[in-house]
């Protein structure tokens, strides 16, 4: 039984339960709705901006523990970043997830998100982990008027 050493680290389960940033708040600079057609999971995410910085990320969604935990850690990681940093951070996270376990997540930059490292070894679950990050990327594009 590899369960306990496997995908579902305690940190993930905690974030799945607590869902930091959950609940939609008004006054967003950008918003995006992402859906995984395979399983029907979805995330609606809003990016709140002050000046050049991420003031808040508010979101709502339903899905598996991985996708919900990922949205929660996303909130923790990106609030306070500059918009440029946000863009870079999303790219780094995506690369790591798609690396099939070959690329580590930097704990300095990603905090609790390192608990998601294991996901990159399960190709079918990478989409779950990326769902909210994709939403953030689209919301960022909107916020920037792209």
């Amino acid at each position: 039984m590899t369960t306990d050493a496997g995908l579902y680290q305690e940190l993930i389960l905690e974030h799945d339960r607590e869902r930091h940033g959950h609940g939609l708040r008004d006054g967003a600079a950008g918003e995006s709705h992402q859906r995984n057609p395979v399983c029907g999971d979805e995330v609606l995410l809003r990016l709140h901006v002050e000046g050049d910085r991420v003031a808040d990320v508010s979101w709502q969604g339903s899905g598996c523990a991985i996708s919900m935990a990922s949205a929660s850690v996303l909130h923790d990681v990106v609030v306070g970043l500059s918009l440029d940093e946000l863009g870079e951070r999303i790219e780094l996270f995506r690369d790591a997830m798609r690396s099939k376990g070959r690329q580590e997540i930097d704990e300095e930059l990603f905090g609790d998100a390192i608990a998601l490292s294991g996901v990159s070894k399960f190709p079918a679950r990478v989409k779950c982990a990326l769902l909210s990050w994709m939403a953030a990327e689209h919301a960022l594009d909107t916020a920037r008027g792209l």
Partner: protein
Amino acid sequence: MSSIAAPLTEAELAAIRADFPQLGEVVQGHPLVYLDSGATSLKPRSVLDAERRFAETRTAAVHRGAHTLAAEATEDYEDARRRVARFVGAREDELVWTANATEAVNLVAYAIGNASLGRGGAAAEGFRIGPGDEIVATEQEHHANLIPWQELAARTGATFRWIRTHDDGTLDLGHAAEVIGERTRLVAFSHVSNVVGVENPVAELVALARAVGALVLLDACQSAPHLPLDLRALDVDFAVLSGHKMLAPTGIGALYGRRGLLRDLPPFLTGGSMITTVTMDGADFLPPPQRFEAGTQRISQAVAFAAAVDYLETIGMERIAAHEAALGARLAARLAEQPDVRLIGPADSPHRVGLAAFTIGTVHAHDVGQLLDEQGIAVRVGHHCAQPLHRRLGVTATARASTYLYNTPAEVDALVDGLDAVRRVFGGR
């Protein structure tokens, strides 16, 4: 199933399992427990051998060549059609090869659409539909037997209507009697739902359709692999099946159509090998089944499909059905007795095949599937291409275990016991 044949003995089951190479695979450090045959079945060695033998010795174009290999390949290909047709109780000229069941449904829908645009001349007039006409499917359908009809309705101006399900996902026959009426031109439904897992009352639905002169299309994807099937006896007009769910390779399926209907139906795909005369002004078409088989066909796959039904016939569909009825009953009963499990469909139906969808607590199906996978147990999670049914059941996703002739009672138990890992990780959720 109310079958009276004897289930497989342990020795027989062991012999069968030895025929399937993939059962020897190790997944996540555990021997594979494959409970996803409802998605696609494993392939026995005899099928793979037949396909390879053909590819290595008889590669040639069929119905086009005159040289020895081409003639032999054509014979093998048509012989395969005879065997698969016989397996489902059809005549050889009533069976059209397709890529899969999805394409078979689309074939009928597009051919009707073509008739509605005036193709096929006077013979095809009976198929024309338009505003005022109704096409009926059910809320239980796989997307393959749903969207093609919605799209046909959208293209022709006909109305798409649908039969509701009860709270447990089974069809509401009372509603069927309301929906099927004077304007109904075609009724499409599945023999066995790939989520509910119980056999639908074909005779009742056919009677409703017949009473109003509507055509019937049966989705036999989840029945043909598991039950003895006699399409003529079921008295349906069309039926579709997928080879890959019944021991054959991917890339091949079949459409059954009543002889007189296929004769009058205009073509769908056009191109080589389905014509008599072609000029720059237009083409005349061959009779069925060739009329519906444009271009170079899935030849080695057809040969392999025939080897697959040979394998099934050697064991006997009655006995396979009995074996799977026992597995299905065990699966449903054991799932139903777990207090935190919601079983989709009736727990004690005599019409259940070896398939059961379920949820556990409020844990997402993906997480359930993942934790089973970590134990080497392969099930399917998601909406199983039946979003409307899931919406009706009030869930977005379920986990689904589905058996085949090679599965054992111990594997069913492994699945149910394996749910403990879900409980351990997600606590009481």
